[in-house]
């Protein structure tokens, strides 16, 4: 081919000096940033698993909550688990349907109107309201009149979950193609029927997975419950009346004590709580993945 002397060939090697160095430094800093993220996560998980695993067994998960000073290995966290389950379940029963309905309004009815934009915007703003405010709110508006109860706690958690469910459901509804809706309209269906029978089922996977994430978030919240359930140590299956307890409340109470037993139970409860949150998150992802496959 072309015979060009060695010296005449263009030098195509890397630019030397500061350009190459600064590029490398920048890339290293980015990787370092990620490492800095992994370290505390790993640290926390390893510690919780190490300290919590030794405390957990079936009796731990079901026994009564003993006094603070009780040594490690005595008692358990049963009432706290029960409390979390009933309170979070009630909160979800409130927030999830309302959130879905709200998202339906935004996507199917509100369209580009000013009200829908306002609601959508403030729904996002509401996700940034500190959870402690939700607790103070329900305290002011409910507890002062009706006393502490699991119900009050559920209200506070539901306020927290509502904007999250609205946003994630809205994103899912947006993804449903209009052609599906039009097919149903063309058969003479009303908008309500189209939404309930066609749009919701099409988006259900994403909606459920979004709801699971909101539930995981609510299960881990402590602050809203501080002012609404008045943490006790006995189980209270009646979520509508009387003070209650929950896993995060228990952990908070035990973290503040110097007693080894309480702390050990705290670690066990923390491990349980993280496990619940992680399981919910993983199930949520699995549903998203399976659902996305159906979409194609």
């Amino acid at each position, binding site marked *: 081919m072309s015979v060009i002397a060695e010296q005449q060939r263009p030098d195509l*090697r*890397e630019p030397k000096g500061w350009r190459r160095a600064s590029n490398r430094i920048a890339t290293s800093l980015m990787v370092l940033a990620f490492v800095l993220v992994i370290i505390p996560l790993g640290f926390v998980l390893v510690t919780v698993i190490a300290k919590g695993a030794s405390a957990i067994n079936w009796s731990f998960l079901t026994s009564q909550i003993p006094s603070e000073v009780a040594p490690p290995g005595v008692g358990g966290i049963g009432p706290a688990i029960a409390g979390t389950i009933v309170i979070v379940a009630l909160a979800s029963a409130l927030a999830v349907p309302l959130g879905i309905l709200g998202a339906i309004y935004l996507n199917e009815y509100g369209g580009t109107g000013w009200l829908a934009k306002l609601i959508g915007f403030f729904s996002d703003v509401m996700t940034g309201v500190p959870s402690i405010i939700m607790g103070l709110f329900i305290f002011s508006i409910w507890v002062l009149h009706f006393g502490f109860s699991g119900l009050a706690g559920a209200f506070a958690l539901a306020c927290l979950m509502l904007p999250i469910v609205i946003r994630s459901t809205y994103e899912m509804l947006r993804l449903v193609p209009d052609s599906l809706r039009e097919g149903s309209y063309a058969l003479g269906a009303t908008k309500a029927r189209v939404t309930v029978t066609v749009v919701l089922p099409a988006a259900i996977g994403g909606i459920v997975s979004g709801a699971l994430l909101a539930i995981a978030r609510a299960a881990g919240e402590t602050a809203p419950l501080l002012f609404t359930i008045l943490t006790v140590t006995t189980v209270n299956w009646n979520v509508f009346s009387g003070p209650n307890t929950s896993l995060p409340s228990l952990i908070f109470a035990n973290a503040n004590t110097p007693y080894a037993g309480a702390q050990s139970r705290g670690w066990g409860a923390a491990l349980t709580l993280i496990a619940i949150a992680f399981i919910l998150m993983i199930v949520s992802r699995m549903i998203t993945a399976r659902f996305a496959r159906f979409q194609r």
Partner: protein
Amino acid sequence: MEDSEQKVVTNLPRSEVAAAQPAQSDASEAGTEIFGAKKVSCYYGSFRAVTDVSLQIYEHEITAFIGPSGCGKTTVLRTLNRMNDLVSGAHVEGDVEYRGASLYGKDVSAIAVRRRIGMVFQKPNPFPKSIYDNVAYGPRINGERNKGKLNEIVERSLRQAALWDEVKDRLNNSGLGLSGGQAQRLCIARTLAVEPDVVLMDEPCSALDPIATSAIEDLMRDIKQRYTIVIVTHNMQQATRVSDRTAFFSVLRNEESDTRTGVLVEYGRTQQIFEDPHDDRTRAYVTGRMG
């Protein structure tokens, strides 16, 4: 960019490709060879988009790549300045020599390659900076700090791009505020500011109106004396208006196995390609019967 590794891809067998390619056309009156592509094949994942392309590009000429959609002409263009490196899963077989040095050799830096072989894109993409900073970006990253020299470079490049008179009073305005034709000339000025050897153009006028198009074509003829230009175009009239040499690409398809790939069909002086094409497929395309 989908994960094409998921699908099972079979590519067109090379024997079919070889059979479909006629002998290459003449290198008459050619100056220095700038690019020598040798049996270049481009892959996206396991899909072979372009197969066994061999051609030479000569100095101070405008070479046009023409052909129907999907024939790989943009892909081949982008192998000339290693822009395909940016696509995850893309790789190249064969070699491209630039002034005798292999572009895909072991120690070759894509950054150094692109410094010498510039590119103008289909849709004008000025940076969200002032007009001055757009043009000065290239020289600055190559180390030029002297304000006087930068002013000189900016003016020279804008003049070469036939944009100076229109913007000389508003160099500090944002580059995003220019019309389509002006923005494209800004991008050309930006490319010329680093004084490349070659300017690649990927359908530079397809997003512009006819007046802006004609301005750019004039520009191309003006700067041809200082640079080598390779242009991909859908517009055959444009190819006849500006280019010295033309390469016609097409899609080679095997209907039974449903495989396809892009191939170089014919390559020669523009006049010959359009007035006396050697290959039937070329004749069909340039006379408007296909593509």
